[in-house]
């Protein structure tokens, strides 16, 4: 029963979901489109919760057992605790709402300091607010105390102000919340730095590993260079005729390797260079002609032909694999999800 029940549930839901795509039956369609997706959302939310607990458990075990790299695990726990505190406990995101500012001359200097404006500019802002409307200072107040001191100053200056806190959930996206601050000033720079390092490693790895060892490697290298240069503006500024000359010299090198005869090589070099030069003079050396030697055109061709062919083959393969796996799940052949 412990084995059969999950398999039966998976098979039934699998069949219904599959039929939902092919059968125009309102109840099944409603289940697939609305109910099943909402179940999935709920499960996904719980999965995040379980994932967080699992992360904590794994890292805590590492720290307790003093396993290799345990200080990193301790740092992960500290980061998690800080994020949790910022997201759920120390919400922050307080703002100050001024409801009465008829005494704008005395309020403006206080407000100017909070919104980084000059006093005259602040007075102008206050003067255009219609009577009965309010003005909200959206400076980042992480604590209630910070907002409270501004409220006290405004009230003492003859105005009326109140503290407003962002709603639960909305505080994440509000400037002045600790979580928002953490995302902008800790997570963003760290994440961007890690990704930016890739450029350095790509350069170093290309220098060492991108070698013309055989035909396939040569093909990869040439297409890599065309893509790298053709995608950026500098590639568009390299004349097609320059590439044409390089191709002629490469062909002459091929003639030399093949025939091992100096005369033939000389004929190939001189003849090739002459043909390209005469053609250039006749056509007026247009930068993007002949198109076959213009890097952006070549790059576009590689993207749209060999690349798409390869991508399609991979996609079809993945599709067939997903289909086969799904059938195995629906028919109860695949049982890895119940630990078998």
């Amino acid at each position: 029963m412990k084995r059969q029940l999950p398999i039966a549930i998976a098979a039934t839901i699998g069949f219904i979901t599959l039929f939902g795509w092919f059968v125009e039956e309102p109840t099944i369609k409603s289940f697939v489109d609305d109910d099943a997706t909402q179940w999935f959302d709920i499960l996904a939310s719980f999965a995040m919760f379980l994932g967080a607990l699992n992360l904590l458990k794994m890292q805590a075990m590492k720290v307790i057992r003093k396993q290799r790299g345990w200080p990193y695990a301790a740092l992960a726990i500290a980061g998690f605790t800080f994020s949790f505190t910022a997201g759920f406990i120390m919400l922050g995101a307080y703002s100050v709402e001024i409801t009465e500012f008829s005494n704008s001359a005395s309020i403006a200097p206080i407000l100017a300091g909070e919104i980084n404006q000059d006093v005259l500019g602040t007075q102008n802002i206050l003067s255009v607010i219609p009577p009965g409307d309010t003005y909200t200072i959206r400076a980042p107040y992480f604590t209630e105390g910070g907002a409270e001191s501004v409220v006290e100053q405004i009230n003492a200056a003859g105005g009326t102000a109140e503290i407003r806190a962002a709603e639960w959930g909305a505080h994440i996206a509000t400037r002045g919340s600790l979580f928002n601050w953490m995302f902008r000033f800790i997570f963003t720079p760290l994440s961007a730095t890690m990704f930016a390092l890739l450029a350095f490693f790509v350069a170093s790895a290309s220098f060492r590993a991108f070698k013309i060892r055989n035909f396939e490697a040569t093909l990869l290298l040439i297409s890599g260079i065309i893509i790298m240069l053709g995608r950026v503006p500098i590639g568009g500024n390299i004349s097609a005729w320059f590439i044409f000359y390089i191709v002629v010299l490469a062909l002459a090198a091929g003639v030399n390797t093949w025939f091992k005869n100096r005369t033939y090589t000389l004929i190939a070099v001189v003849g090739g260079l002459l043909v390209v030069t005469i053609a250039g003079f006749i056509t007026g050396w247009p930068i993007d002609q002949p198109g076959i030697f213009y890097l952006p055109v070549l790059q576009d061709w590689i993207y749209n032909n060999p690349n798409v062919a390869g991508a399609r083959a991979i996609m079809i393969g993945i599709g067939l694999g997903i289909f086969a796996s799904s059938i195995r799940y629906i028919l109860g052949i695949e049982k890895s999800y119940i630990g078998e």
Partner: protein
Amino acid sequence: MEKFLDFIVRAGSLDRRVIFVVIALAVMLPLFFPLGLPIRPTNSSQQVYDVVEELEAGDKALLSFEYGPSTKPEIHPMAVALLRHLLSKDVKVYITCLWPDGQFMALEALEQVADKQYGKVYGEDYVLLGYRPGAEAIIKGLVSNIRKVFTVDSQGDFLDDIPMMAGVNQVKDFDFLFSASAGYPGTVEWVQYAADPVGVTMSTGTTSIQVNEVMPYVQSGQIKGILGGMPGAAEYESLIGQAGIGTSGMDAQSVAHIVIVAFIIFGNISFFIERRRSKKY
């Protein structure tokens, strides 16, 4: 000559820290001293521009932010440029996020474009629905009934209280769909579960590396145009006539690519000399 060849062979085993310094300079210098290289829009970028250009004031565009700080340099400039184009045409913009970081990226873009540049009103001209976990299921939910996925927006306001949400219930109510995507869930899922079954016109902006994966959908017409990485963003900026961070980044990327190609060529020359010598002896 032999000494020169020796030098090249020795340089072939260049310390990687030297390479790092050269790359750092290649990226930094053009940022301080821009070259102003001309940007030529590709067909796929032009296609995105044409699709947006066909939209009229009051039309509804659904934008999905699926990227984070790591891919921000590639995707964010195009998201900003697209927002500029849409809001300048008074198209109503609805934003969802399939990635949790996407909400922060969307906020930043909206603050820069909707608030500061165009002075648009939240809830009337644009709305940020926010993030929900669930990947494809969220897309499928939006196709079926937006209000079952989002009861409130990112500010905690009920959808029924937001003026521009009146009459917007499903993905098919939108005139245009754009996925700013850096991976899964992203463009491919939007095509498979929303744009294709519903028939909404869709375009996308992805990282350069993702273009390979998405290109088959562009070629088949399921996606109308693609902005590929920072070059795509720069091309879009040139099309709308507002240079931004994508354009300024292209000089740096151009020089960095040239330097990498130079390293590859140099590494191969060294490799050939070494191989010839080993054959000789």
